[in-house]
């Protein structure tokens, strides 16, 4: 327990977390501090490219791992499964319509790449290695949850949509998936040599860029929370904190079953625990227009994201260390 607190404490006073807190605070006191949309998108393009590339270069360095395919399959399975758990949990905890619950469930089955990035940064800061291919697992987990969410909405009569061409494109060719996997492939192909060429762009300034991005996410989350009166009932908030724990537990189980390294297990827990705020919201607007976007987004960005960033990640690290050893 002391250990968690110490770890969480150390985690909390990092520039990364404090940048998020600064953004959150600025938005809550209604400062006009803001990032232009183009800058926010530019930062996220940089982060996706860098994290994908480094993951691929990592795979190139350590050889193709036999567990790569197994991990991908497990990731897809987790992403398909988690929405059912989330749906049931949310409906148990709060009075939420079927469509809304299905939309939320889609968010929680999918992943938050910036949470993944923050966890990777923390791991590498502590010298704990992780499988490079976890980036590919992250990409693979982005979309399947959308299908489960649609199935839930339709089965319960809440949705009228079939999955049309536009939606399939939204799901499979989503920009963040394509960039993440594409950069992963480039990193893999060009390997250590490629990484050396662009290291001073994608490795060295990485943490600083992440600070700015988290500052922006704090601003967006804060603005969302400010406008969320009436949306976040206690039951809903409880879901936003319990669900990541459930997701992390399933990620832990999968990680152990796959025989991942300690770092890999932590990352899979983080993927299970985190909720999408970029790809899934857009897909849900297309597929389930009647779902209230404020609910999913405020939950994912305003509750679960800060929870994971501050308490979740160190907690998962602790648990994984306790169970998976070192």
């Amino acid at each position, binding site marked *: 327990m002391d250990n968690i607190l110490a770890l969480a404490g150390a985690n909390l006073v990092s520039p990364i977390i404090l940048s998020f807190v600064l953004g959150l605070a600025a938005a809550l006191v209604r400062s006009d501090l*803001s990032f*232009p949309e183009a800058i*926010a998108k530019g930062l996220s393009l940089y982060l996706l490219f860098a994290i994908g590339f480094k993951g691929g270069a990592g795979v190139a360095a350590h050889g193709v791992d036999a567990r790569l395919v197994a991990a991908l399959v497990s990731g897809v399975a987790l992403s398909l499964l988690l929405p059912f758990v989330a749906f049931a949990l949310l409906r148990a905890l709060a009075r939420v319509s079927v469509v809304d619950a299905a939309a939320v469930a889609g968010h929680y089955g999918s992943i938050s790449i910036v949470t993944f990035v923050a966890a990777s940064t923390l791991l590498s800061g502590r010298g704990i290695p992780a499988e490079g291919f976890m980036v590919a697992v992250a990409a693979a987990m982005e979309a399947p949850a959308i299908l489960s969410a649609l199935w839930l909405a339709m089965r319960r009569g809440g949705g009228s949509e079939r999955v049309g061409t*536009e939606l399939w494109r939204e799901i499979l060719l989503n920009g963040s998936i394509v960039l993440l996997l594409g950069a992963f492939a480039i990193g893999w192909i060009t390997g250590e040599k490629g990484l050396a060429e662009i290291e001073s762009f994608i490795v060295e300034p990485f943490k600083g860029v992440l600070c700015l991005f988290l500052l922006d996410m704090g601003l967006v989350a804060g603005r969302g929370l400010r406008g969320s009166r009436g949306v976040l009932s206690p039951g809903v908030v409880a879901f936003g904190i319990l669900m990541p724990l459930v997701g992390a537990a399933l990620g832990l189980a999968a990680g152990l079953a796959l025989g991942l390294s300690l770092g890999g297990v932590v990352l899979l827990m983080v993927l299970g625990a985190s909720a999408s705020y970029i790809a899934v919201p857009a897909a849900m607007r297309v597929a389930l227009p009647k779902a209230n976007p404020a609910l999913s*987004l405020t939950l994912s960005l305003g509750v679960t994201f800060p929870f994971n960033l501050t308490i979740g990640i160190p907690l998962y690290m602790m648990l994984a260390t306790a169970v998976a050893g070192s």
Partner: protein
Amino acid sequence: MKMHEAKRVEIIIEAVMERQLTNALNDAGVTGYTVLPVSGGSGRSGQWNREGQVGRAGGMVAVICLIRPERLDRLLEAAFAVVEQHIGVVSVSDTQVLRAERF
């Protein structure tokens, strides 16, 4: 200058639906349209603005379409089919255009 009667249709719709809307407009025989960025707004579903946003959800675009009066109905039906389930507003004003052969 010789002007010609036309309609100016302004559709403000969720950004994620832009492609579906413009596809529908093309299918309805519209000869052109223009898309304006939107930076914020407010409606029954609350207030929003694009500052610092990364995803395409939670943003709108304004699609402007100048069209001959006789083609209006087909356009509106096509647009409505897309807008119906989604957040958005549609307005139509009388206007006059130069170079009618373009519309």
